């Protein structure tokens, strides 16, 4: 029944009391055939699917994620080389071929995106780079979620002096030029192994990216904690921690999810930027940023070395942004009308 599912229905009661008297309170006509109502999430999902750009973004993100995860393995099974395979035995192979071109200059399916300077397959490298780029984006966002949400929620809920101290710390960290901070961190602790360098990159990006999240969540909690349901929960003897994590944080999830989705591309961009400068991912690991950095050196002669990683990254970032915007509209329908 439409009435049971429509969240505006209660407003209707306020506006039209004479209607309310007729069917208020018990609504016997539907009590028998009560259908399980739509949760807020299902509502949001429906709205998201109506947004064409967001659906496009979602599909592209899914395709790129699957391709990045499965791609390198598939290529290895089919053609027998990995992303870091350097055909050094055959000097004819160890050079940069244009897309769809074999060693003899003929058309070939072997390297759809061509090869890089050392003859490594560009497609495999882009896909493997995608793994790392997405990984960095998602993990760093999760870290920022974990720290930022907890930190912001605690500051917002307790308020007063605790809030003041906690948020001033955030302000201080905010005021540091964070790219420089990350560069300093990365160069100070420059690791010898590529994996170590990657871990450092996580730490560096993660340590600064939670700040905005903490502010967003604190703001949300500040406005939520004075609502009656929090007082009601406290009046039933629920403890502070439980109120924060069970009652308040779920209510902030809308904006948090939106911000998290939008911060994935942001972090990926930061990673690309750092890798481009040579501080991020080190060879033989690749990310879209480090591939672009290699490509840009040969832009005049081998443009495909820049074009493919660049376009893939741009497409992913676009899609994630569209998806984030779509999620914002879906989770917070009032915002669109403003």
């Amino acid at each position: 029944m439409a009435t049971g599912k429509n969240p505006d229905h209660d407003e209707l009661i306020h506006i039209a009391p004479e209607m309310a008297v007729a069917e208020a309170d018990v609504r016997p006509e539907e009590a028998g055939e009560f259908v399980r109502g739509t949760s807020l999430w299902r509502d949001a999902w429906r709205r998201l699917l109506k947004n064409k750009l967001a659906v496009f973004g979602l599909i592209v993100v899914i395709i790129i994620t699957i391709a990045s995860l499965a791609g390198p393995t598939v290529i290895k099974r089919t053609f027998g080389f990995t992303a870091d395979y350097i055909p050094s035995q055959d000097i004819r192979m160890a050079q940069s071929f244009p897309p769809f071109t074999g060693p003899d200059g003929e058309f070939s399916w072997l390297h759809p995106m061509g090869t890089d300077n050392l003859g490594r397959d560009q497609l495999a490298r882009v896909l493997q780079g995608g793994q790392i780029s997405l990984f960095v984006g998602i993990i760093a966002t999760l870290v920022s979620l974990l720290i930022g949400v907890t930190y912001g929620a605690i500051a917002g809920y307790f308020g007063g002096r605790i809030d003041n101290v906690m948020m001033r710390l955030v302000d201080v960290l905010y005021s540091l030029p964070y790219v420089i901070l990350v560069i300093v961190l990365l160069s100070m602790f420059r690791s010898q192994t590529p994996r170590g360098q990657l871990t450092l990159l996580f730490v560096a990006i993660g340590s600064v990216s939670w700040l905005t999240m903490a502010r967003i969540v604190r703001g949300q909690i500040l406005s939520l904690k004075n609502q009656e349901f929090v007082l009601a929960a406290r009046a039933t003897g629920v403890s502070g921690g439980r109120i924060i994590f069970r009652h308040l944080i779920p209510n902030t999830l809308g904006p948090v999810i939106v911000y998290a989705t939008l911060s994935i591309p942001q972090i990926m961009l930061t990673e690309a930027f750092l890798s481009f400068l040579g501080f991020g991912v080190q060879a033989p690991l690749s990310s879209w940023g480090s591939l672009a950095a290699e490509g840009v050196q040969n832009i005049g002669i081998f443009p495909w070395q820049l074009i493919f990683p660049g376009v893939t990254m741009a497409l992913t970032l676009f899609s994630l942004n569209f998806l984030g915007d779509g999620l914002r509209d879906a989770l917070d329908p009032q915002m669109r009308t403003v």
Partner: protein
Amino acid sequence: MSSVDGNLLEVKNLRTYFDTEDGMVKAVDGISFQLKRGETLGIVGESGSGKSVTNLSIIRLVPDPPGKIISGEVIFNNTDLLMLPSEAIRKIRGRRIAMIFQDPMTSLNPFMKISRQLMEMTELHLGHTKAQAYDHAIKMLETVGIPDARTRADSYPHEFSGGMRQRVMIAMALSCEPELLIADEPTTALDVTIQAQILELIKTLKRETGTSVILITHDLGVVAGMTDHVIVMYAGKIFEQAPTTELFSKPGNPYTKGLLRSVPDPTAEQGKLYQIPGLPPDVAHLKPGCPFAPRCDRVEEICHKEFPPFVQLNADHYSLCHFAREVYADSGGTPA
């Protein structure tokens, strides 16, 4: 472990102040009252008279800062709640003293299923397992008259109407069989027809469980049908305190008289409704003298200068007025 005189709750000289930029707001200023087991006490007053703060003070939920309980005792079952550590008071909230709030639209968590919110209570206080708590939740929903409780329990609050949500709140409040139920304007946000249903429900459940009730309201009609005793509050003070029938038939305070006159009479001809002139005072800047003096219709010079005495008019009847005896006599009472 009931106290000797059968008092479940005894509030003595409670003062709750709010430290605001505008100065010290004396929201509750020296309130004392008792509540016997099984009794219903009504607290009446205009908005801002300190009704809600009184009750939030009882379970120590006054927002601090800016609010602070300056002094007083809240003796519940022989324990001073104001002295308890916060862990202990949390075990009392919901378990032995439960509260229902004014606006059922906002007092349920919009992100939690109804069943979940009910289960939280008994899991917390009665140590129920999930399954036990769920069954108990369904039972409570049936008790408060929600049809088809088993299916509806898994709905979200936005799928319920206002009256239904207030029923859920009552189910929640009563699920641990508290000894005291504080209902803070439980029907203010509801339609008149639903109001009657909800009040009837509270009354029935009270009779069945023997719970004592404090009913906060600004609706004198509600008080008349529901309570044994009434406290009339104004500017953080008790202006009059009497058994319900006595208060309605023989009010001993000009303010109570004004309130009673302000109740619209549906049988009367269409005409101007009576209202007490003026506005409630700013409790941050009270002048010496009676806080009601500027609005009172039988004000005299002394009212502006001296704070009125709390006069005992009868065994159980007190009034805060310089002319309490005269007013009481005017209403037909014989001062003791």
